[in-house]
Structure formats: C-alpha cells, structure tokens
C-alpha cells in the first residue's frame, strides 16, 4: 500500500512538472512565418493555411484552360506579396530555407512541386517590398 501511494505521489509530481511544458504557449518549435506585403491575405489566415493548395489548383486550371487571369488566387500574386529579401537585397528563391513557402513546408515535411516549373521569385514588373521589414512576424 505504501509502495502504491509512493508511486502515485511520484507520478503526480512528474505530471505536475511536465504539464506547464506541454501547455505553455511559445515553447513549441514554430515556423517563423514572414509577413506579407499587405494588411491581410486574400482570405482569412486560417483558411489559407488549410486550403491554399486547393485555391491554387483551381486557379491554375481556370487560367490555363479558360484564360481567366484574376489576381486574387494567383500563384504569381502570392509570390509577389510574400517575397522575402535575402541579404543581398534580392528576393530569395525556393532553394533558400527562408523562402515563404519553405518556412512552413519544411516544418510540416511537405515538398511542393510547384516550383519545378513555376518561378519562385516575382517578375521584374512586380514591386519589391522595402528593406527587410517583411522578415519575421
């Protein structure tokens, strides 16, 4: 009986010590998502995190087959808005771990194949964000 009580006490102490580590916000490794250019994204952030791939897939077919080139869900616009500048002041490519897409995809261990064909940096006509103000949160 004493042994059982001692075990329970030890367990209670262990759980008590661990609980704050599990629940305390900020201790988990989280991706440091670079901020986009505008005030807000084209859709609500949570929705974009879950469904951006569906939006892109839909838009790609609309563009390719129907010639619809609206900007709202265009990959080109995503890239232009979420540009991350490197130390040389130029937009980083998908080869860099700092690239906007890489930050999350590396975290969740997903390899998107968009950039096997698509450009991962904005075109010359797209205005670049100023300085490195878009880095970090």
């Amino acid at each position, binding site marked *: 009986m004493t042994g059982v009580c001692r075990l329970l006490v030890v367990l209670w102490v262990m759980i008590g010590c661990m609980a704050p580590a599990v629940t305390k916000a900020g201790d988990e490794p989280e991706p440091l998502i670079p901020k986009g250019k505008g005030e807000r994204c084209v859709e609500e952030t949570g929705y974009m995190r879950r469904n951006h791939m569906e939006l892109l897939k839909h838009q*790609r077919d*609309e563009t*390719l*087959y*129907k*010639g*619809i*080139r*609206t*900007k709202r869900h265009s990959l*080109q616009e995503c*890239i232009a808005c979420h540009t991350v500048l490197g130390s040389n002041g130029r937009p980083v490519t998908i080869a860099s771990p700092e690239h906007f897409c890489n930050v999350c995809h590396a975290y969740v261990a997903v390899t998107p194949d968009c950039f*096997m*064909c*698509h*450009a991962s940096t*904005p*075109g010359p006509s*797209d205005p670049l964000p100023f300085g490195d103000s878009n880095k970090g949160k």
Partner: protein
Amino acid sequence: MSTHCTCIHAETCQAGPIGARSCNTCGHGSDRTSDTPVPVETVSRRCAITGALSALVVSHGVLLLLSNNNVAAAKPADQPVSRTIRWGLLVDVTKCAEGCSSCVDACREEHGWTGFGRPATDPQWIRKLFLKDRATGYAVSLPLMCQHCEFPPCVDVCPTGASFRRADGIVLVDRHICIGCRYCMMACPYNARSFVHETPNNQQPHTPRGKGCVESCTLCAHRIDRDRPLACVERCTEIGHQALLFGNLNDPRSEISQRLTIYTSVRVRPDLRTNPGVYYQGL
C-alpha cells in the same frame, strides 16, 4: 457528292456520308466558318484578281503602316476565352529579313527558354527557316512555330489530355498532366514542339517551364489575355519589318482577315487538313 461539302470541290468531292464534315480534297467543311483552309487552287484564282485590286492593296498597305492594330480585343480578366474568336497569325514572307532573328530572340527573352549548344535537343519555340527553290533560285526566310491548328495532331495523340486546344484556338500543353512521352512531338507535322531536357532555372513568372515536359509556342496566351501584342509580333513591328500580323480570323473586320482577303496566302501542309491558324503570305 457529300451534302456536307460546300467548298469549290463540292462537285467532285467524294466525302463519305457517315460523319463526313469535311471535303476529301481540301479539308473544307461546311461547319467551318471564316477560318476555312485556303486551297491552292483558290489562291491561284485570286492571283487573277490581284491586279484589279492593286489600287486597293496600295491604300491598304499604307493603312497597315499607319496603324499598329496588333493588339488583341479586350477581354475582362475574369471572363473565359470565347469560342467566337480564332486567333491567327499572318507572316509576310516578303518582309521577313534573311539573317534577322528578332522574333526568335523576343520569344526567348519573353519565355525564358535557352539553348545549351545542342541543336538536336535544345528547346525551340520558334525558329527561322531559309527556303530556296532550286529551279528558280527564289529564296525566302520565314519563322516557323506552332501553327495552332484547328485539328491539331498533337492533341489527337496525347495519352493524358495534357495537349489541348483552348476555345480561342490556341494549342497549349498542360504541364501539370504532361508525362513527357513526346508522342505529340512525333505527331506534329511542323516539328514545332520541344522537350525540356535540362532543369530550367530562369523561368518567367508568366511562363512556367519544367524538365520532363513538352512545350511549344503558346501564342503568348498570357499577353493575349492581358490585351498585349505577342512578343514576336511586337519586336518585329518595333524594328520596322512589320512581317508579322496577329488578329482574330473569325472577325471579318480585323486587319488580318481583311489582308487575307486581298493577298494570296498559304498554310504549311494544307493537305493534312489540320487547318492551321498561321498563314504565310508571299511563300
């Protein structure tokens, strides 16, 4: 005689009654509208009236120089392309300068395709050809690219549906589903398609390109959709050659349609009945 055939061969055409929608002789079909093939015979007949129309030709030529009407008709960005439009290109071979490759350079810069010094396998969306009649010595220089056929063999043979024809007549490759089998390259009578053998690293935002896919001239669809002239046409006009004219073949009032009614023109391999959208004048 098939009741479907309404072209000049209608009296002699033996087009089969079942599913026959085109003439056996020239491919002319009653269901085709203003972009019907121009049989060589028709072209030669037109030659007879060319002299009578010479005054009109001259005045029209002056108009062509004055107006830069190569810009496509406006389409709202959220509207799909329309079947009422058939984009086409008219190449005036007599104005195409030998040794000039401005259209090729413009295309390369616009779409980011580059060579690696391996002509057999390098991408080639548009290329310059030099043709010479051995009997007469008559020589011409002309650009050759995807002919954007109405009945494209590349689309027929594609096993995945990646090769397709847009409603407005532009033949494209959906790289998302292209498996790189290259059947379309074998099927294309114009040798207009290329396979990407190397990993590209300088893609333009408007032209995705990837290793393992087949590609060809897109007729600058991204420019057409944004109401801008084609890269090759723009460059050719800029340098003053004016050898390329782009427009809507379905619109009888368009510059290209009007010029086609006045000048003789041919398509490459009309016998294959692919009904290309690219016309050559002076060939």
